[in-house]
């Protein structure tokens, strides 16, 4: 009964209640949406790490990771494979050869990790093959007798395999894509020019275009000027099993884009059938087994089981391989909670003030209610209910709007192009799809109710202190 009265009381002064409700709505929406964007970025990072970069469990020689010594191959790969296959929860496994070396083209060279793989098995563990940039080839689909290498976009840029060129066809394409003629005219000065690097391309284009033109057409111009020479080659050099310098020319099979500079710069994938003959290793000698499990949450348990079954090997799950990522996923929920608590604390001031007003304004009415026999507990409850209703209405509307906006933005994602370079250096994509788990909404709801209750205590106590005789006499 009392809650009905409280609900009606909320709507006695509509404007006042609405101000509080709107402020709660905005606070909750702002908080939830900000959290969703952050959470989306992290979820995408974890997703990319687990699906494209590291997968769930690695098995290698205990000393292998110290310095990637080529001689530290896996013992008894046959038996190892049997053990892994017979472990419940394992979805797929692939074996890799991992060698530290250098990648060279005519003008540049850089240190890389050469990863020898079996493309078919690799596809069952990693989804990296899906990130091939259209037009650059494929993930070893070519039927070629040449050595093939699958490399990252940033490495391709570093080695001048991807270049920026502005020529007639680029200018024509820009006109076709409805870039204004005066912008295209400004770029005509570069006709036939090959830029030395992405940096110099950006710099030179920046010099001729205005800020607005860059913002509107910059990415389009970059896309068109971006050029990849099919059949590009590079040389991979490294020390073989007997510490003898060796190497070979590899043709670029395809270029991948995982929006993680570190990974793209260092990971060069080649077929084991091309790599093994150069290394002096036997065809069944590998450095690492990479396992994908059915349920990512179960990875730590499965890796424990494998550890027991496989003494003498190093078995690591993704949380151990990338502790920063694990820490991030474990800690971030606490951060979200703290953030929401701060917002709700700010909201609480507004609620307290309004409820105080409610009590003072109704002094006479409350006095009357007490005088005709409504006990103090019910008065207290009524005030508390009103406060909780205010916060719940605001909270529910706020969460509803958040859910809708998250749904809309998640369809196409939000693009933070301005921060692309910085975010990708940390391994985060700049194209974020906001997302949040349902449990977060439950937590927020609980916090909102607690806020409503806490901020009603002071005004409700004020109401209890009223002396009925005194209160009745007030105007």
């Amino acid at each position, binding site marked *: 009964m009392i809650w009905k009265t409280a609900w009606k009381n909320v709507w006695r002064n509509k404007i006042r209640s609405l101000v509080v409700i709107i402020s709660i709505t905005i606070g909750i929406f702002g908080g939830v949406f900000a959290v969703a964007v952050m959470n989306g970025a992290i979820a995408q990072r974890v997703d990319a790490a687990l699906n494209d970069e590291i997968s769930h469990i690695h098995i290698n020689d205990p000393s292998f990771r*110290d310095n990637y010594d080529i001689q530290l191959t896996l013992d008894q790969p046959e038996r190892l494979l049997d053990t892994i296959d017979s472990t419940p929860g394992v979805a797929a496994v692939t074996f890799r050869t991992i060698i530290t070396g250098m990648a060279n083209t005519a003008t540049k060279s850089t240190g890389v990790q050469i990863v020898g793989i079996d493309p078919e098995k690799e596809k069952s563990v990693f989804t990296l093959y899906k990130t091939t940039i259209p037009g650059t080839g494929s993930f070893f689909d070519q039927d070629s007798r040449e050595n093939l290498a699958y490399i990252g976009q940033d490495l391709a840029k570093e080695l001048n395999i991807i270049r920026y060129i502005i020529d007639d066809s680029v200018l024509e394409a820009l006109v076709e894509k409805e870039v204004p003629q005066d912008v295209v005219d400004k770029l005509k000065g570069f006709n036939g020019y090959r830029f030395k690097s992405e940096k110099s391309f950006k710099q030179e284009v920046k010099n001729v275009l205005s800020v607005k033109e860059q913002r509107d057409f910059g990415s389009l111009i970059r896309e068109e000027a971006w050029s990849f020479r099919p059949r590009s080659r590079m040389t991979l050099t490294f020390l073989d099993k007997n510490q003898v310098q060796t190497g070979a020319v590899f043709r670029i099979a395809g270029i991948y884009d995982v929006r993680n500079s570190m990974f793209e710069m260092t990971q060069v994938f080649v077929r084991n059938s091309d790599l093994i003959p150069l290394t002096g290793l036997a065809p069944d000698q590998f450095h690492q087994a990479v396992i994908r499990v059915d349920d990512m949450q179960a990875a730590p348990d499965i890796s424990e089981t494998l550890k027991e079954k496989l003494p003498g090997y190093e078995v690591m799950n993704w949380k151990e391989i990338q502790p920063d990522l694990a820490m991030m996923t474990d800690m971030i929920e606490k951060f979200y909670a703290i953030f929401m608590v701060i917002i709700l604390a700010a909201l609480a001031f507004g609620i307290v003030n309004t409820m105080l007003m409610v009590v003072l304004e109704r002094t006479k009415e409350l006095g009357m209610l007490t005088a005709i026999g409504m006990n103090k507990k019910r008065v207290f409850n009524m005030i508390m209910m009103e406060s909780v209703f205010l916060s719940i209405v605001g909270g529910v509307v706020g969460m509803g709007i958040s859910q809708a906006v998250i749904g809309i933005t998640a369809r196409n994602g939000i693009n933070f192009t301005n921060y692309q370079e910085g975010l990708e250096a940390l391994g985060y994509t700049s194209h974020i799809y906001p997302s949040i788990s349902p449990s977060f909404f439950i937590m927020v709801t609980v916090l909102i109710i607690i806020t409503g209750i806490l901020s009603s205590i002071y005004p409700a106590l004020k109401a209890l202190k009223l002396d009925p005789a005194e209160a009745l006499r007030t105007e």
Partner: protein
Amino acid sequence: MNNLKMAWRNLWRNRRRTLITSASVLFAVFFALFFRSLQLGSYDHMFKNAIESYTGYIQVQQKDYWDEKIVDNTFAYDRQLEQQLLADKNVEAAIPRFESFALASNGPQTKGVLVLGIDPEKENHLSKVSEKMVRYRLDAESISKIGQDPEIPDKVKELARLFEDNAYTNSSRLQLDLGISDKDAPVIMPSIESFTSFENGYIKMGEPGVLVGDKLSQYLQLGIGDTIVLIGQGYHASTAAGKYEIKGIVKIPLPDIDNKIVYLPLDICQGLYNAEGNLTSLALDVVDNRDKAIDETMARIDKIVTGDKRVMGWREMNEVMVSQMDADNKSGMIMIAILYLVIAFGVFGTVLMLTAERKREFGVLVAIGMQKKKLASVMTAEMLLIGLIGMLSGALVATVIILYGVGHPIIFKGSMAKMFEDYGMEPMMAFLGINTYFLWQIFIVALMVLLSIVYPLSKIFKMKVVNALRA
């Protein structure tokens, strides 16, 4: 003056409400200042680390060097230019450097490294390499010695094992990582220092020898006195190869640099790359490192530096880091904006109540001859005072904490510190002292109050006295 007096008295007619509204402003201002100070302070610290251990504030380079970092894009070490640069009032020192890449190896271990030819004496003006020498190290041997010492508590022994292989450039960080309080330090630290002390040497111009980063030395499994082999590409595509004795180990506070840096004496490095007398850059140390002073200095230097050379500022050289900080900075600002928005509604709620409650009073005042304009200014003054009280008290509380924080940055100890280090960050959070971000809060609060005042003012001006009197 009278208006202000009336406003002030009005405020205290409903003391509770004034205090709660001011408190909400206080809350917002305090949090905003506190978080801004921490965030901006951390950027400041990170930039200083990057600038002072590596790039310097301003560099003079050959014009193509930054785009293509090859030995061919170097310039002759021109003493006349150096003198001209030093003549600038904001340039404290011009430090010659020769920077390149090479493959470093020790038997089977190979890694691409950053080779930096430096003048060991001049470098003390900027990157202060001599202060970054490893002095203590928790290697297996020192940990076992710590383990056997009965005077050292078990908790310290445990932490020592957690931090195995960590290197330290000073004993205070070592003390913090081991979780030893200042009270216990005089008793325990001397023995720990002696267990962990690390014999280190330094390089000198003209003498072959290298310093290597701590992480790099661990990766290559090299120690003092061992030999490192460097292979790279020299001037005009010649081969650059050399064998050098490791004289010392440095710990650079940037993990990305620490795991790939090799310092050589400048002349030896030029010899290695067959580029005698050439430099890749002259890094400048400045007297005044504020943004404005740097920009002005760069403009002046730009006139001196001619021909095939160019001037670069630290922002351009640390582009990626600037972009990261910028993204992080924006996200922090959005959170504060949400906080302020919520508080603004709270203030608006108060205004709404004030207006409703005093409708009749306003009517009476106007009826007995008070001008509506005057009434409006009293009302505005009231709200501004509420904002001012909240803002000043919030700023006061925040200032006290921030000023304390500037002298005492938050430094993490024990396993918490380990977590930060795993993440590639220094285990500390610095505060930024009072700066322009304080002004922003004043501006925001003022804006907030002024926006919320619109409603009561329009009420006052539209008010019909007869109706108001009957309310």
